[in-house]
């Protein structure tokens, strides 16, 4: 049975090309694709909690394709596939007007696969890979309408922020794996005592939190999320509210048992979370675009979740789980409603949308139900979430209770503006009368909104099977809290009433409040989004300046700079390391060898000093053949013959090419250039000479030639050891080398053809 666990992400992954090809041929089949997440949803329900599956991958590093289903991953996987079913159904209709719909659906499927892989993974490295895959999918989906500059910018921003965070997280993961001695998450959590005293732990906490904060849009990395609303609405509903942005929260929750006793962990999470909530709430009130408004409220929700995980209290874990579920339900529903309004009424401006209720009654019902859950109306699951939230948040000393009250009031305003205002009041003017969309587009928002009511009326449906296992996974032990029990004390109850009243008053005043907030342009000019822009601008300025300095376009400069750096650096190391020395055991040269070396040196000097190119070629030939004869006297007969034949062919080729070119002109270097280049060249030669001497001063170990000599005949049936090395001992190297030769010949042939073509 457990192999089904690994099958779930694989199945989705394998479906990607099929979706792309199938939908290109038959676009009308798009809504039927919803069967895929629905099937996966069913498969997850089939699996027992605690199911594991493992295939070793890099076993020497303790890395494997390990998957595990516990309460938390089950909750996430069910959200991904459950909401996914609705989103796929919705997109099937919503995206028909877009070109490349098949590509959209394929990337959406890829995203779902990556997401499932990330939440089911029990190995940190595997989780990281899927994590980054979700960032890539998000990039492609935000930038889906790539002809719009805003979409391109948002896609790039989202990718840069989440992937930079991801890099920090990778460093944290590597440290964590080193500290714990394993990358398997369940083992890390089981042996968490090791981490309690480990010196790496503070670094791990900071680095992992950076990755999670970037992914889950925590202050000050939150700016990418509202901008990501440039994506088509189903993406906003699915990736940027219900699932992907929860991945950071998920990992924080997943690792919480290991770090929850660290003050750094608590401070970091509650601090960032609280700031995020506050920022999101203020900017949500300021926004008039429905989708961006919802995005800011998502930022608030993510801040709330991170704060809850940072609080060391059993009730906080349950509150986090319930709120995560509730938020996914109502927020996805509201986003889809915003998409429907955008499509049917032609605008997403909250100030303009009015009186649509009588034209779109079903949409209005979905919106109202979702909004009631969001505002925490009694009878809805949102009420329970709010109840738990207030009880936890108001119990904390410090600023958090005040922030929580204000933020919750702001959320009431958002719920009202997004879901109530557009459907009541004097009907707006429209070119075409708006009406409810068809079943495929209404199914998801209605179902999700109604589920909010159903779970609220019958909390037993999810209490034991879904909420408790997930909360226990966050806490690292059972919580002992049953959903539906009244948690709130009297004072909390009255405070929540105050919040509701405050929210409704602010909602009624919102049309006057919004322009005043919008006038505060400093919020834009000095916010993280502006900082991101200046950062990118300065990066391109600095790299431009450096490039201008370094990339001069002069080949001579490049060679000179490379030589000076390389040999200068070597000289420093050589002198600093005290590596200067003479060969340890040096046989005296035979007289003819000394003469040969002198001849080659003379040839090299002549090649530099002669003026005429052909004379220089001949001098170079003297060097080549001289070196060949030298090889012969050194007992390297094979080399000598190779050198002779290669030199001959090279000279023939060189002369044949030079004969076709006006290469006869003299070296155009000026006198001082000659001097400078000569100085560089001689310097490099001296350093090279000293370096080689230093190498030769180290005693030589003859083990390798001895072994090769002894093995050549018995094992490889060859007496010429050089050839045995080439065709037997190191045959794979030789195969690589002849492949390189073939590639060089291919490249030259292509180059020749193109040059001839001109």
């Amino acid at each position, binding site marked *: 049975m457990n192999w089904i666990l690994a099958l779930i992400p694989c199945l989705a992954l394998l479906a990607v090309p099929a979706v792309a090809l199938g939908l290109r041929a038959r676009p009308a089949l798009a809504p039927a694709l919803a069967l895929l997440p629905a099937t996966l949803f069913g498969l997850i329900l089939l699996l027992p909690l605690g199911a594991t599956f493992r295939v070793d991958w890099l076993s020497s590093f303790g890395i494997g394709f390990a998957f595990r289903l516990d309460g938390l991953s089950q909750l996430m996987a069910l959200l991904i596939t459950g909401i996914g079913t609705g989103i796929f159904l919705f997109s099937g209709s919503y995206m028909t007007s877009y070109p490349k719909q098949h590509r959209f659906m394929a990337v959406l499927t890829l995203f779902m696969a990556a997401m499932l892989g990330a939440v089911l993974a029990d190995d940190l490295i595997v989780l990281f890979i899927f994590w980054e895959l979700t960032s890539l999918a998000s990039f492609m989906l935000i930038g889906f309408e790539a002809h719009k500059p805003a979409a391109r910018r948002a896609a790039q921003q989202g990718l840069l922020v989440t992937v930079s965070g991801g890099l920090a997280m990778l460093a944290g993961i590597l440290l964590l794996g080193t500290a714990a001695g394993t990358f398997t998450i369940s083992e890390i959590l089981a042996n968490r005592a090791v981490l309690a005293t480990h010196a790496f732990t503070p670094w791990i906490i900071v680095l992992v939190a950076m990755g999670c904060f970037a992914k889950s849009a925590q202050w000050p990395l939150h700016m990418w999320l509202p901008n990501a609303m440039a994506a088509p609405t189903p993406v906003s509903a699915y990736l940027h509210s219900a699932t992907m942005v929860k991945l950071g929260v998920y990992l924080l929750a997943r690792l919480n048992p290991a770090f929850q006793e660290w003050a750094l962990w608590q401070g970091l999470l509650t601090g960032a979370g609280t700031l995020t909530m506050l920022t999101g709430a203020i900017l949500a009130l300021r926004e008039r675009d429905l989708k961006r408004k919802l995005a800011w409220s998502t930022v608030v929700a993510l801040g709330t979740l991170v704060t809850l995980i940072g609080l060391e209290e059993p009730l906080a874990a349950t509150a986090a789980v319930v709120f995560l579920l509730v938020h996914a339900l109502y927020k996805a529903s509201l986003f889809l409603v915003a998409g429907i309004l955008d499509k049917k009424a032609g605008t997403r401006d909250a100030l303009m949308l009015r009186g649509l209720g009588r034209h779109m009654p079903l949409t209005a019902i979905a919106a109202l139900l979702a909004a009631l859950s969001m505002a925490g109306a009694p009878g809805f699951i949102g009420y329970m979430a709010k109840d738990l939230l207030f009880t936890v948040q108001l119990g904390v000393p410090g600023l958090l209770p005040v922030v929580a009250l204000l933020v919750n009031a702001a959320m009431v305003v958002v719920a009202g503006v997004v879901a109530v205002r557009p459907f009541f009041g004097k009907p707006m003017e429209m070119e075409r009368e708006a009406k409810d969309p068809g079943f495929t587009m209404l199914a998801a928002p209605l179902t999700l909104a109604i589920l909010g009511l159903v779970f609220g009326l019958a909390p037993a449906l999810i209490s034991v099977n879904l909420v408790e296992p997930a909360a226990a996974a966050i806490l690292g032990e059972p919580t002992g809290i049953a959903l539906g029990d009244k948690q709130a004390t009297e004072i909390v109850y009255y405070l929540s009433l105050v919040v509701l009243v405050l929210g409704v008053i602010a909602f009624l005043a919102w049309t006057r409040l919004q322009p005043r907030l919008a006038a505060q342009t400093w919020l834009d000019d000095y916010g993280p989004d502006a900082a991101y822009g200046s950062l990118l601008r300065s990066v391109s300025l600095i790299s431009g300046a450096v490039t201008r300095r370094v990339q001069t376009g002069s080949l001579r400069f490049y060679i000179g700079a490379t030589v000076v750096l390389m040999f200068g650096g070597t000289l420093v190391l050589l002198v600093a390391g005290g590596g200067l020395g003479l060969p340890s055991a040096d046989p005296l040269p035979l007289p003819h060898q000394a003469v040969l070396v002198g001849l080659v040196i003379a040839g090299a000097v002549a090649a530099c000093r002669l003026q005429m190119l052909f004379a220089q070629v001949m001098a170079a030939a003297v060097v080549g053949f001289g070196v060949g004869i030298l090889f012969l006297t050194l007992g390297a*007969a*094979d080399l000598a*013959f*190779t050198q002779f*034949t*290669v030199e*001959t*062919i090279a000279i*023939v*080729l060189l002369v*044949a*090419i030079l004969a*076709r070119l006006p290469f006869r002109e003299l070296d155009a270097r000026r006198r001082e250039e000659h001097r400078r280049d000569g100085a560089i060249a001689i310097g490099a030669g001296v350093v090279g000479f000293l370096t080689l001497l230093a190498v030769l001063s180290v005693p030589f170990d003859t083990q390798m030639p001895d072994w090769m000599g002894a093995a050549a005949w018995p094992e*490889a*049936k*060859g*007496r*010429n050891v*050089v*050839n*045995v090395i*080439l*065709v*037997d001992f190191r*045959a*794979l190297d*030789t*195969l690589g080398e*002849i*492949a390189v*030769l*073939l590639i*060089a*010949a*291919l490249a*030259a*042939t292509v180059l*020749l053809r193109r040059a001839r073509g001109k």
Partner: protein
Amino acid sequence: MKTSFIMNASARYVLWACVLLSLFVLLRGHNEPGGGFIGGLIGALGFVFHALARGAGATRAVLRLQPLTWAGIGLLCGILAGLPAMLLFGEPFLTQQWLGTTPIGTTVLFDLGVYLVVLGFALAFVLPFMEA
């Protein structure tokens, strides 16, 4: 290209002498100095001489296949030589095998591959510049 009568007349014999010599060097390479690299280069030298004397067109006619094709065949030989170990004997790729106790084995095929690649490679560079 103007060439001497002697070169023109001797080109064919020099070519075949070179090819024979190169094959001899190739085959004795396992026990004495020689082998695929040197053999291939000596063979190429013969063809280069032929092209100098008679022009590249004549040489291409003798070669029958494009130099690159010869080189490709050579690479194929090199890869094929490595396969028996993997497919028949369960040893790593390119572990050379022999026919019983004879010195004939996959090394010969491998060295022939090197020979052909080097020959084709050198000619692919030189022949285009011998064309009129």
